[in-house]
C-alpha cells in the first residue's frame, strides 16, 4: 500500500483552515457513496476546494471520489459538500436506505450487473 497519500501529511492546522474551523455541521447526511451532482459552475472568488468540487461533479461523483480528487479526508470533504449543498450549488443522490439486510430487488440487480461484467 502506498505511503504517499494525499492529505496524509497535511497538518491539522491546514485542514482547520480549509473548513473555517467547523467540525461536522450538517455533514452526516453525506454517505461515502452519496452521488454528488453540480447544479452550477464555479464562480470567480469561490474557495478553491468548492470550485474544484463543482468541476468534479458535472457528472455524478461519489463523496469518496470527491475526497480522493481533493486529496482531503472524507470528514473534511463532507463539510465542504454541506456548504455547497446548503447554498444549492450541488444536489445529492443518497443511497437507498437499507435496514439490517439489503433489499432483495437491489441484490438481484447487483447480481445481474456482476454476472455481466
Amino acid at each position: 500500500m502506498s505511503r504517499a497519500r494525499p492529505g496524509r501529511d497535511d497538518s491539522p492546522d491546514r485542514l482547520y483552515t480549509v473548513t473555517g474551523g467547523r467540525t461536522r455541521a450538517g455533514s452526516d447526511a453525506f454517505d461515502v457513496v452519496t452521488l454528488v451532482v453540480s447544479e452550477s459552475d464555479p464562480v470567480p472568488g469561490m474557495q478553491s476546494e468548492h470550485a474544484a468540487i463543482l468541476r468534479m461533479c458535472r457528472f455524478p461523483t461519489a463523496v469518496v471520489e470527491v475526497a480522493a480528487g481533493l486529496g482531503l479526508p472524507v470528514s473534511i470533504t463532507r463539510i465542504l459538500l454541506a456548504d455547497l449543498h446548503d447554498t444549492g450549488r450541488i444536489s445529492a443522490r443518497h443511497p437507498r436506505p437499507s435496514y439490517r439486510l439489503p433489499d432483495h430487488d437491489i441484490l438481484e440487480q447487483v447480481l445481474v450487473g456482476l454476472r455481466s461484467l
Partner: protein
Amino acid sequence: MDSVASDISDVSDVPDVSEAAESSHRQTLRSTADNGLKIVIVGGFGVGKTTLVRSVSEIRPLNTEETMTQAGEHIDDTGGVAAKKATTVAFDFGRISLDARNVLYLFGAPGQERFWFLWDRLFAGTLGAVVLVDTRRLSDSWYAVDRLEHHGTPFVVACNDFGGPAHTPDQIREALDLADEVPLVFCDARSRESGKQVLISLVEHLRTLVTSAPRSIPQPIPQTVPEPML
C-alpha cells in the same frame, strides 16, 4: 469457480471499462446514476485487497483516508485541536457501474484494530464484506472475522492463492473458527473473472440471508461514533 474467461463484456449499455481506464484518472458515471452501493474487502497488509479491487474496477483504484480522534477523546473548545492524537486510516476503492442507476463501490480496508473505529462512519449500510485471507497467515484474519460477526455484517471468506501449501476448506474453517453458513471461496485476486466470482458469492450469500430472514429483523445496535478530528 469458473475457469479464466474472456473479459469481453456482452453488455452494450455499460460504458467502456477496458484497460483504457488505467491511464485516465477517473471516468465519469452516467448522468442517470443515483444509487451508490458498497462492498468492503477487509484483510491484512499484502493480502491482495488492492489487487482484487483493481481486477474488477472500471477505474484505477483511488486512495483516500479518514481521520478521527481516538474513542473517548473529544475536540476541546479552546482551539487545541492540533494537540489531539488522531487515528488516520487510509483505504482504497474502485467502482463498478452495474446498470443505469446502481453503482457499486468496492473498498479495500485494512483489518487492523484502529480501523474499526471508522467502520460505521465509512461503511454503514454496506451490502456485506469479503474477508480476504492468505492461508499462510490465517491468524491475521481473526480480528476481522470477529468484528464482522460482532457487527452482524454478512461476509464471505476468500482465500487468495499465493501458491503456498494447499489447505482444505475444513482446515481453513477450523483455523478461522468460521460458522458453517459463512461461505468460503478460493480466488486469485489478479484475475478479473476470479474477483468477479468472489463478489457474486457474497451477493448470493446475501440473497440467501434475505430470503430466509425472519420478518422481524433485529436492528444493529447504534454505536457511538468518535468525533472527527479537524
